[in-house]
């Protein structure tokens, strides 16, 4: 399977009144064509900055300091960090679709649903209004939206939260993008609605072969839909691997602690240790490994001084921890 996205040494900083914050620190990651990749982390881990970097939607005070994001389009590879805003606009919406946590922020309250979806279509393709309307209705049906004709004619406030999120997904999918980035797409929804939206993502992948990156703080969500999982902490990747393998045998102490700390309705969920302490303070970055102040396996000489690289320790398995130095395959 070939890669659709290759991120190398991506470093992003935010300028704030208190100084400069490093939100992403030398991120190396590839995304395979057709996979569902979950990026999991707690607040301040940099997961949203990563998603926004790929879509080039970083706020004005953010700067990509280093690194590249190679996106393999049908016409060849493009470095998303290098191209002009004009070129990026062509890619965004047509080749990269986006779904965010709060649907209301991205829906225009005074515009009919169908017009909002069509807007995305006609801004990227030459298509008649009638054809665009037909295509929109067709997509709403495919997204199993009950009563699609009614929804198309509605305004956002007339729809429930779950329905609004389906509309956002329709807007993201209307040009059949190759990559869909979903940032906490179900966090604001009730659990039964969340389950439906997650099923919808699975169906989209099956139907259109779209690659999906889902950003979530919920390990359960990652397990339910992802093939591979990326665990982030304090702007760094801690561990990458096949979802089943990471859950069967978490390697990084942070992953172990996270699995040990989560509340679950299953008694079978792996019992690791319970994470102590507080998440990292972004204003006072830690020297050495970012996790060492909370790590029960901390090695005095090395962990507190040197930041571990991402070691390749097995089939598609990567871990940034000195415990695995020399284990590489």
């Amino acid at each position, binding site marked *: 399977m070939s890669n659709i996205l290759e991120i190398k040494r991506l470093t992003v900083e935010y300028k704030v009144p208190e100084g400069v914050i490093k939100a992403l620190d030398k991120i190396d990651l590839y995304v395979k064509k057709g996979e569902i990749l979950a990026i999991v982390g*707690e*607040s301040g881990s940099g997961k949203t900055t990563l998603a926004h970097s790929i879509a080039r939607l970083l706020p004005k005070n953010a700067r990509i300091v280093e690194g590249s994001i190679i996106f393999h389009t049908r016409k060849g590879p493009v470095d998303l960090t290098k191209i002009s805003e004009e070129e990026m606009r062509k890619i965004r919406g047509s080749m990269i679709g986006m779904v965010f946590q709060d649907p209301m922020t991205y829906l225009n309250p005074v515009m009919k649903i169908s017009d909002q979806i069509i807007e995305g279509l006609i801004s990227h393709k030459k298509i008649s209004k009638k054809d665009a309307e037909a295509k929109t209705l067709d997509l709403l049906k495919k997204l199993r939206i009950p009563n699609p004709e009614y929804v198309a004619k509605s305004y956002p406030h007339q729809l*429930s*939260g*779950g*329905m609004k999120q389906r509309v956002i997904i329709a807007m993201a999918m209307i040009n059949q993008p190759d990559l869909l980035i979903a940032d906490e797409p179900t966090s604001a929804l*009730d*659990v*039964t*609605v*969340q*389950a*439906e939206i*997650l*099923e919808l993502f699975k169906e989209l992948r099956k139907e259109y072969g779209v690659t999906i990156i889902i950003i979530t*703080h*919920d*390990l*359960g*969500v*990652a*397990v*339910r839909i992802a093939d591979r999982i990326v665990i982030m902490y304090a702007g760094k990747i801690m561990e990458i691997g096949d*979802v*089943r393998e990471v*859950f*069967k045998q978490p390697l990084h102490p942070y992953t172990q*602690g*996270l*699995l040990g*700390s*989560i*509340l*679950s*309705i*299953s008694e*079978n*969920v*792996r019992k690791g240790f*319970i*994470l*102590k302490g*507080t*998440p990292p303070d972004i204003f006072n970055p830690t020297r050495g490994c970012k996790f060492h102040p909370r790590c029960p396996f901390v090695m005095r000489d090395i962990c507190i001084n040197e930041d571990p690289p991402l070691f390749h320790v097995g089939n598609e398995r990567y871990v940034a921890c000195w415990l695995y130095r020399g284990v590489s395959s």
Partner: protein
Amino acid sequence: MTDELLKVEHLKKYFPIRKSFFKRSSLYIKAVDDVSFIMRRGEILGVVGESGSGKTTLARLILRLIKPTSGTVYFDNIDIFKLSEKEMRRLRPKMQMIFQDVTASLNPRKNVRDILAQVYKTHTSLSKKEIDQNIEKLLTSVGLTPPHIFMNRYPYELSGGQRQRVNIARAIALEPELIIADEPTSALDASLKRQIVDLFKHIYEERKGKLSYIIISHDISLIYSLTQKTLVMYLGRMVEYGDTKKIIHDPKHPYTIMLISAVPVPDPDIERNRKIFIGGEPMTLESTFVGCPFYNRCPFATEKCKKETPPLVRLDDGRYVACWLYS
């Protein structure tokens, strides 16, 4: 003191929907519709439901922050709706609330000492020195140590988890008999959530038998980790009530089955073999509607479910279910 801490009887709260300013409306939303249960002293009850299920309205009724349309709440055998404002004020220290928004519930212009001292000043006649000693003890018991450092901090200097600890400290300051916590962890990350749950357990153990909790949440894993009994609500009605483990491992009401099946479990072996049973959205209840509120999403619904409200019946294992399948 009796064994029975709280008795809720046929509690109802209907909110009128005004169509125009001048017209008195005959339309209303049944936010809480005929809820009854008994809570023993030292019990931990979870109230679970999705948005619009009425769980927060139920909490506000139990604390008499709002008045019911009908029904009663007995706290320590006292009908709280019959009390005068003054008598109610005397009862308040025994029932405390912890809110979802950890930041909004702390005054940003007061430091931790002042926030906690306020409680003692309002309800006790302790001296300044005694208050300080109590605050030190409180902060230690909620894990904000060393206490003299946290006493002088302002809310903005605290992390989300620490702020929630201050809220918990304030709630336990007067040694209440009941603490109602509304979504106490929903604003927190996974690792902090676990720490707060452990703190709730720790405080409960310290005051074993004297303290009860009502935990209100949409988060079923939180309810599972912390509570002994669970009340499942759907559109204002009780649909299932009983032992937490029984309800979550073997739900009986079709809505509970749907709810539990929707919760993602962070275990790939379990997730792979799971049957997820979902569909539809809660209906908008007409005021005149008399059937089962879940019938439009229920795969087992019959004509009867559309026309008649299922009563809450007791099953052999001791739980209560409101569904025609079981009556």
